[in-house]
């Protein structure tokens, strides 16, 4: 299950962050997302260490914690998408396909949101439409992963 989604800007500042949990661990999820930025930095700065698929936008598993797994995605404009899930036992290959699909959808939503003429690039995303769309994507992803 997806518990948190974040869009992080160039200065590692959060542009959009939404959690989908009922409990009050939003702050903890913030910290997890924030810490995972270190991994992204390291992967981007030291491409030789990481997998040869650095050209790919999908960064894969960033950061396993006890309860969560963190996945990353880097757009061409160096905006980072970070996904926190609680699906611990899924094999990497499955997650890869599913989450890649998810990130593609999410990317499309993001592109639509920032293409809004009233949106100023680099500012936080406050569009309600975007929020709704993301929620629906998350829901459908939960379904597809369950199936």
């Amino acid at each position, binding site marked *: 299950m997806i518990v948190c989604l974040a869009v992080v800007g160039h200065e590692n*500042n959060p*542009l*959009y962050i939404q959690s989908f949990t009922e409990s009050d661990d939003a702050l903890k999820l913030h910290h997890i997302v924030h*810490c995972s930025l*270190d991994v992204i930095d390291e992967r981007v700065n030291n491409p030789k260490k990481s997998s040869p698929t650095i050209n790919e936008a999908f960064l894969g598993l*960033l950061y*396993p914690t006890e309860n969560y797994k963190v996945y990353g995605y880097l757009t061409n404009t160096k905006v980072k998408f970070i996904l926190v899930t609680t699906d611990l036992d899924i094999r990497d290959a499955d997650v890869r396909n599913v989450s890649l699909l998810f990130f593609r959808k999410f990317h499309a939503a993001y592109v639509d949101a920032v293409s809004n003429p009233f949106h100023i690039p680099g500012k936080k995303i*406050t569009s309600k439409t975007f929020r709704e769309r993301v929620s629906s994507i998350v829901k459908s992803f939960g379904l597809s992963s369950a199936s």
Partner: protein
Amino acid sequence: MEEYPEELRTPPVALTCLVGCPEVHPLITAHLHSQQPPINSIALPDFSNISVIPPKKPPTDTPSAPVAGIIKRDWLSKHRTRIPAVVAAIFPSRDLSADPAHWLQLCSHLDNLKASIRGRNIKLVLLILTNWDNKDDTSEERILSLRKRAEVDLKNLIIFVPDHEEELLKSLNRVWTVFGELADTYYRDEGRRVRSRLEKKNYTTIELYIRYCFKVAIYAEFRRDWLEALKFYEDAYHGLREMVGTSTRMPPIQRLVEIKAVAEQLHFKMSALLLHGGKVLEAIMWFRQHTANYRKLVGSPEVIFLHWEWLSRQYMVFAQLLETSSPNDALYVPSTASVPEEKPTEWEFYPAYYYQLAATYMKEKNTCLEFALSMSIDVGPIDGNAESVVASAYLGQYSRLLEHEDTFIMQPLTDEEYARYVLAEGKRFQDSFEIIALLKQSFEAYSSSKVERAAAYCGLQMAREYFSLNDFSNAKQMFDSVANLYRREGWLLSLWEVLGYLRECSKGMSSAKDFIEYSLEMASLPEPTGSVKSFANGCGPAGPATLSEREKIHKEAFEVSRGELKLNSDEQNSAFKVNSDNPLYLEIDLISPLRATLIALVAFHQPTVKPGAPSLITISLRSQLPINVEIDQLEVQFNQSECNFIISNGQKPQTGSISNIQPGHRVETAPDLVLATNKWLRLTYEIKSDLSGKLECIYVIARIGPNFTICCRAESPASMNDSPLWKFENLLETIPIKDPGLAFSGQKAIQVEEPEPQVDLILGSSGPALVGESFILPVIVASKGHAVHSGELKINLVDTSGGGLLSPREEEPFSSDNLHVELVDMSCDTPGDQSEAPSDNIQKIQPSFGLISVPSLDVGGSWSCKLKIKWNRPKPIMLYVSLGYSPQSDEPSLQKVHVHTSLQIEGKTAVAINHRYMLPFRQDPLLLTKLKAVSETDQAPSLALNEKTMLIISVKNCSEVPLKLLSMSIETEEKSSACTIQPQQEEFREAVVNMPGEEFKKVFTIFPKVNSSKLKIGTVSLRWEREQPHSNTTASQVTKHRLPDVCVELPLLVVSSECPPHAFLGSPFLYSVKILNQTEMVQEIKCSISDSQSFVLSGPHSDTMLVLPRSAQVLVYMLVPLGLGSLQLPRVSVTSVRYSAGLQPSTASSLVFVYPAKPRIDIVMEAGYILSSSFNPPKTLFSSISKFPSPHGPRNLLLLPRAATIPLTIHNPIATSASNYPRIDKSGKFCSPRAARELALMTLYAACLQGSDPLRLLEKRLNARKEIGYEFDRACLMVYDHMTFGGPPIATQTVEEADQLLEIYQKESHIEAEVLSAPPNLVYSKLILLFTRKLLTAVSDNWDSSVLAIDKVAPDSWKNEPATRILEFSVLHLAMSEISVLGTRHQIVINEAVDLAKRFCDGAAPRVINGCLRTFLKELKENGQDQPQNVSV
């Protein structure tokens, strides 16, 4: 890791035992330990101590009995420290050889030993201790029997020689080898024994399987067979996994604890082996699996904290292992292909990751422990029992130790009892410090890897832990550093949480300032993203980050700041209240996080302003605080403090507490000073500054309430950037100033200009400067509208071509001589009133810089000074002059006005001096050096010794101004005897004006007297000055030119040719070539002459001759010119045979000009010569001539001699012989026939010179126009003596007499000139003139016959040089014509002719003429033509 026993942490080492002879034990143990691999050894001094080796237990007969545990706690340590693999019995050799009692003793020891080690299969080694000296004493027989008794092989019996170094080392090595081999065998045998049980499935329970596996692994480790060890550890681990679900042996809690303890140990062994083998990836995978396996085995809820503690320990130990194993390889990722499942991410290679998780679990444990403690209230009473609970024999098992009649009985525990025990144990420990320690380790590890966000998270957790311990200062420090990161990256929610903690910390530390700062920052934070509703709690002490919460914090902060609220409710901090004793002062600068709370932008509306002129300034304030803030007073501070002003709030009456306004300060009142959220408060005021320079706003200080001040550093709108927190917010963009242009470009500083200078600075220039002279440049300071006070004039000389200022480029050391241009002097006209003290006059001169103070000038006054600049080399420079002054006299330091001017001046070389040597005309010395070095061009010029050489110095004016040359001299350097130079020095009588580009030449003669190859001639120094018509103060300059050294040598041969300067067509002349031999040898000279078409010549054509030493030979040629004009003489080439050198005169020197007839110029010269040979000195003549009024220059006198120039006196024979003819008639004119004859001769002579008709010449002279203003002095005629002529030389007795005579002669010659140059009409009477005409007519009529006659009678010497005898011939013509045509009596005529000759011709001429005429008469009489006519005069 430290909690594990030592035997577990380190790899096992083989153990041996030494018995007997304790003196060699240290030697052997040290050696065994130092070898690789090392061997540990137990040293038993005596054979009685052998019992320390535990005896083998009897094998259990009941295999079906339940196994009490998995692994015995002390099994490993027993094998590592107490059961040796090898026992060495050491006997001294004397025991073998000595008496039988010893031998028996030895045998019994051996038997005991064998008995005690038999069961354990321990290997035995015999060491026989012997001395080097009696090494071979030991009997073979005894040794053999000993071996038999001990049942050891020969190789296991070692002769040990401790007292010989070499031998000792050998035996020690032997011991080590034997021990190693035997230990290996022992451990292999043991391992094989246990393994065989595994292979035969000879175990009943899974516990035994695990135990056996463990034992095999340990034995393998003893043998350093890591692979096998790892395999069996893995097997044991897997076995353990199986046991989790199946075992029912113990109560569930304790069972799980035991399994976990064993698993922990097994896993530790495996991890250590893997990591030491460099298999980091596998270790990590194993660890991941291990934690995944056991994480879910939480166990029963009441002791759940044990599980978390265990898990935390797993992570911590693994982190430590990872850290210690090989930190460099920790990040190394092996090939990804071998791991099909998820490969570890980067972070799993960081030990920090594991520390962090260990801390997390420890925290979990802490939470659970607290919960468990709170649940079980009855923990306290069982404390007494808890003490008796100890660890039992098996690993991970605990039992109660009961004291029962002096024996201790281990009693198993129930789960409840155990739970109580561990709770009581857990209570004793402070977990927080452990958590902090773990987090700190993680924090440091992350920080060192530059993983700052994860480190910050650890820091945050640490700080929270500190906070929970009420350690506020540590907590605040950590929180602050974390907050910085969140601020920078705009993680609002995290920042909100941290700030909430910080606010509490500062409350705890009773710091009002910090409290207010954090509160204000929190209040002005933007809304965090995400759904607001879900942040109800979990955000730390600050509560949810909502607007209402922010408003609450805002209000609280301002209440504290007004002193209405005490900060801390604690009693001990009651003093903490903001009041007049503790005012609150906040400072907000460019990087302060409080910029969101209050930002002050200041913009001037103009970039520059005139001094004293008003300028508008806008101050814009903005706050992001959620509630409006009312400011009581604003103070704006500038760098010029007199511009500071205060804006007070019009809404609020001035309260007494804020009246800190200094008197004289400007106070403005604004209608209201309320800051609304995210709205700019704009205030525009006028501001004036009288001070030029930069006026910059520095602070805007806001006062809120009596004791709260916020000092905000002013910012320019142009350079404003939003704080990182608000930068990403989707807010309405507002501009701080209404004018958008100003909002983007406004600056907080303004440039106040200097006042306009009203003083002229004029540089007068007089053309280019000349090198060497002191160039005077006037500088005029003229005041137009300002008075000048304490003025300073700065002068700078700058090289226009860039480069080094004025210092020379060359590497010469810096000195004033090397300066190309220097400022020499500055002289100023002192003002009329000498009011200023001289001490005020600053004057400073450096070569390129000058400073002079200008006296005070009133408006309209002016002052000037003169700069004297000297150019040492030609160079263009830029002269910058700047004047700084203050218009007011009262404040000299206040404000200076500056005027600048510049002028480019070229420095030029004034004169160029050249020189040239010339030999005398037509003279060629033969110089050997010249012969030899023809090729060398830079050869010093050669001069001939004792020959005169011309030195021509030419001075060219290179400047643009006319120069006056004053003098020129040659200063000889060496002794003057070396050569003489004439003239040494010449002052030009009248300064020679050398126009630009003109060349002036001066000739010197050099007469070298010393034969030298390097004669220093000297230096030409030329004194000159700039011609300036107006000023007479210019100093003359001297330009020097060093003449190069010359080579002087004796010319061996000198060839000089001689010929007249000109020739006449058809008349022969002589051309002689003289060869002078200056050597001591006879010189053979070949000479030849080439024919020339223009000349007919006679003389030796080609000849060889010998010139005697120190003598000369002359070749003489007679040449008759055939052509006209400038002709080349036939070339005579002279060749010296000895030197094989030809001497050939240059073509220029062998030219001669051929006239068609004799030119007059030379005759004049001859005449002059004649005249000078008479007594009258020629000087007198010329000086008298110069008096003659003539429009032409003196040169013309020489070229066009009038008849008057030849003073002819006609000697009147009648007057002298018979004075019946009066000399002067009634009209005062000459009337004697002598005068007529004189005039005729004069006219005839002039006609001859001009080649014109004498009659016509006479007419011309008679009709010549009178000169205007010319008055003829008739008195002269009275004094004029027709008969004066120079006789023989007169000798006088005294000087006075000579002077007297000279005076008389001068007077006479003066009169002569006066008379003879006068117009003839005035001098002679008409009759005389008539007679003169008659005479001349006769001469011209009778010319041809006279020529024939003269040719007959005249001497040859005259006929050969007709040009020099014109006067004499004229006398003859005149006389002959008078005799033959006019028929005057010949006595009279001859007498007159002789007299004329006496007067005008030189010595012998009168007599010759007399002779000639007598001969003529004789011939005339012979021819019978003596028909003289009677002529009456």
